[in-house]
C-alpha cells in the first residue's frame, strides 16, 4: 500500500499544466502506480473540462468558422497517411534485467529509453547515482541505488527534493517508504535514508539545487557547505 502521495496542490498544478517539467515527470510516475491519486486526477481533469465547457467565447470573435474548418480538413487530408508516432511499450534497455528495474511505470521506462547508457557513480559506500537527461536544466533528475542495509550520509538540501521509490524500500527518522511512495523534503530539512536489510532500493529523485552533504562525509566533500542553509 502506498502511504505517501503528492498533495492536492501539486496534483492540481500537474492537471492544469503549470507544474514544472521535472516535478511533473515524478508525479506522472507516481500516478501510474497509485490508483488513489489517479482517481483524484480524474476529478482534477474534469474541472478543466467543466471550465472549458463554460468558457465565454471572446466578443470580437468574428473569425469565419467555416473557413477555419476547411483549413483544418485540408491539413488533415494532407497528413492522413502520416501515422502517429508509434506507441509501443518501451523496450527494456539492458540494465532492466536486474530485479531493481523490473516493473517500472511506463513513463520511467520511456525515460530509460531516452537514457540508454546509465553512468553510475559511487557517492558513498552503498550509494550510487546515475543522472538522467529529461530535457530541462532547472532540476537534477537521477536514479539512486542504495545497497541492502546501507545508510546514506546525513544530508540536507539547498532546494526542494522529491523522491519516489521504484523498488525495495528505505527508511529515515520519519518513516518507512516503499514502492510508489512519494516524498517531498523542503530546503534545509536534514535526513539520513537507510535501505532495508533484505534488498536493494531504487529511487527516482528530483533536486532543485546540488545536494549539500552535512555529515562527516559531507564536511570532507563540501567543506564550504558546512553551514546549514536556512
Amino acid at each position: 500500500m502506498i502511504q505517501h502521495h503528492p498533495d492536492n496542490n501539486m496534483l492540481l498544478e500537474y492537471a492544469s499544466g503549470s507544474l514544472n517539467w521535472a516535478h511533473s515527470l515524478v508525479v506522472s510516475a507516481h500516478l501510474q502506480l497509485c490508483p488513489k491519486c489517479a482517481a483524484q486526477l480524474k476529478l482534477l481533469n474534469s474541472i478543466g473540462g467543466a471550465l472549458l465547457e463554460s468558457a465565454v467565447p471572446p466578443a470580437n470573435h468574428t473569425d469565419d468558422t467555416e473557413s477555419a474548418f476547411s483549413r483544418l480538413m485540408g491539413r488533415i487530408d494532407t497528413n492522413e497517411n502520416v501515422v502517429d508516432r508509434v506507441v509501443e511499450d518501451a523496450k527494456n534497455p539492458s540494465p532492466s534485467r536486474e530485479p531493481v528495474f523490473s516493473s517500472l511505470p511506463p513513463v520511467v521506462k520511456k525515460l530509460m529509453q531516452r537514457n540508454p547508457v546509465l553512468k553510475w557513480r559511487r557517492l558513498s559506500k552503498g550509494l550510487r547515482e546515475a543522472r538522467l537527461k529529461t530535457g530541462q536544466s532547472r532540476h537534477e533528475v537521477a536514479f539512486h541505488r542504495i545497497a541492502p542495509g546501507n545508510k546514506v550520509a546525513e544530508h540536507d538540501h539547498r532546494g526542494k527534493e522529491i523522491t519516489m521509490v521504484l523498488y525495495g524500500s528505505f527508511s529515515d527518522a520519519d518513516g518507512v517508504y516503499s514502492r510508489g511512495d512519494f516524498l517531498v523534503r523542503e530546503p534545509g530539512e536534514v535526513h539520513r535514508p537507510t535501505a532495508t536489510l533484505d534488498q536493494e532500493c531504487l529511487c527516482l529523485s528530483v533536486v532543485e539545487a546540488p545536494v549539500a552533504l552535512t555529515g562527516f562525509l559531507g564536511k570532507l566533500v563540501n567543506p564550504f557547505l558546512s553551514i546549514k542553509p536556512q
Partner: protein
Amino acid sequence: SSPQTRDDEWSTLLVKVGVSRDRVAFEKLFNHFAPLIKGFQFSRGGQSSAPEAADELVQEVMFRVWRKAPSFDPTVSSASTWVFTIMRNCRIDALRRNSRQPDTDDSLEVDDIWDERFDNQPLVYLQQSRVQITVEAGLSSLPPEQSHVIEKAYMEGKSHSEISAELGLPLGTVKSRVRLALKKLQSTLVR
C-alpha cells in the same frame, strides 16, 4: 435538451469520429469546441491572447482531436474533459518550443508525461458525463475567492506561486483556497 444529454451528445459524436472517421460528426464537434477553446485561451491575457494565437490553438487542438479520437473512451472521460487534456498538452508543447532547452530533442515528450491513455483505475461505473455536469454545477457554487484561484490555475495556466504573487496573497492562502475548493467539489461527487 438538458445539460446532461447535451454532454452525452459530444461524447457520442467523438466516438463516431474515432470509429468511422465521420466528418459530419467532426464538424459538429468543431463548431462546438472552437469558440470554447478561444474563450478559454482568451482569459490568459498578455501576448498569448492575440486572436491569431487563439486561431492557431484551435487548429492544433482539433487536429489532435481528429488523430487521437480512436483512443477516446467515454467511460474514462467526458468529451470536454478529454478535449481539455489535449488542449493543456498543446499549451505545454508550445511553451517548451518557446524556451528550447539544449537537450530537449531526444528527451521525453509532453504526451509521455501527461499520458491520458494510461489508466490504472479499477473500473468504476461512474457516468463520466454526469461527473462533468456535477463538477460544472459545483464550480459555480464555490465562493468567489475560491473559484477565482481555480480559474487562474486552469485558464491562465498559473502555478500557485504565480497566483500568490499576482494577487498579493501569501502562498499558504492560495494553497488553502485550492484545497477548500477541491474538498467541496469532491463532496458533491460523493453525494
